């Protein structure tokens, strides 16, 4: 196996570990409510790295990309339809 074909995976792994250090380290610094935002942003970034590089989403068949997008859309529908119900109960 050529070194060039391994490099993107190793670079991605380094990025994932750096992001882990950022999310863990930042949680010990008081950011006045932004800790949650940082943690969520880092988690989404890590997930995208895994999906795009390790799972090769955009090098997959068109149908696979459609399935992945539908999964994200279904999750959005789940949240958007259920959340107002909970919020309307006023806790």
């Amino acid at each position, binding site marked *: 196996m050529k070194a060039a074909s391994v490099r993107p995976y*190793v670079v991605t792994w380094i990025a994932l570990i750096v992001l882990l250090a950022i999310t863990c380290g930042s949680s010990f610094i008081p950011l006045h409510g932004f800790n949650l935002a940082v943690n969520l942003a880092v988690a989404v970034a890590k997930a995208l790295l895994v999906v795009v590089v390790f799972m090769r989403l955009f090098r997959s068949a068109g149908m696979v990309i459609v399935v992945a997008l539908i999964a994200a859309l279904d999750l959005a529908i789940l949240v958007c339809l259920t*959340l107002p119900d909970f919020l309307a109960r006023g806790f």
Partner: protein
Amino acid sequence: MTPACASLRAADHGPALRVAEQFEEASQQRAAATLGMWIFLATEVMFFGALFFAYSIARYQFPAAFAAASRHTNIVLGTTNTAVLLTSSLFMALAVKCAEEDLRRATVTLLAITGLLGLAFMGIKLTEYALDYRDHLVPAVNFAFDPAYARGALVFFGLYFLTTGLHLVHLSVGIALVALFAWRVARRRPNALADQVDIVGLYWHFVDIVWIFLYPCLYLVSRT
């Protein structure tokens, strides 16, 4: 030999590849298997998505208790485990790459490392459960918490054991699949699916992604 295997016929693409009769050729079978795994993972997104949603609602309802409860999780073991799982995904991605280049020995080695890292994750997680038990954090078994936050903390640790437990079940299935495929690649079993390490890879990476979201939700709620 199972009926499914008996119905396999040799394809025209070399003696090592066999294609099930509903497929024209190996590439079509591969595409179908990959798509099937992605569809399964889409259903898993719904499965874990509902749990994350339940977590969000509960955290919104008990913000102070979730902060207090999260401080009782073991951040050293949790962070170590995250690094272990991210590293296992690297080795899995490399195993898939080697499998596609037909480097069988390297594939088996990389799959073995991936599986061992998965086992290491399980070992660390079970150690953590033992510490949680010692600290009286297991709901319905020996739960004891600051009365001011007891109700919300009970919900937090209920979700903690439910989500990490389900993640662990998924990971053990992943380890079993990795072992099975490593064995089949090593034995050169004449079955096109045995060569398709990438579908196990997809599952493994998905289980990694679930943990990527569980980690901040459980360990990093409030550390300042």
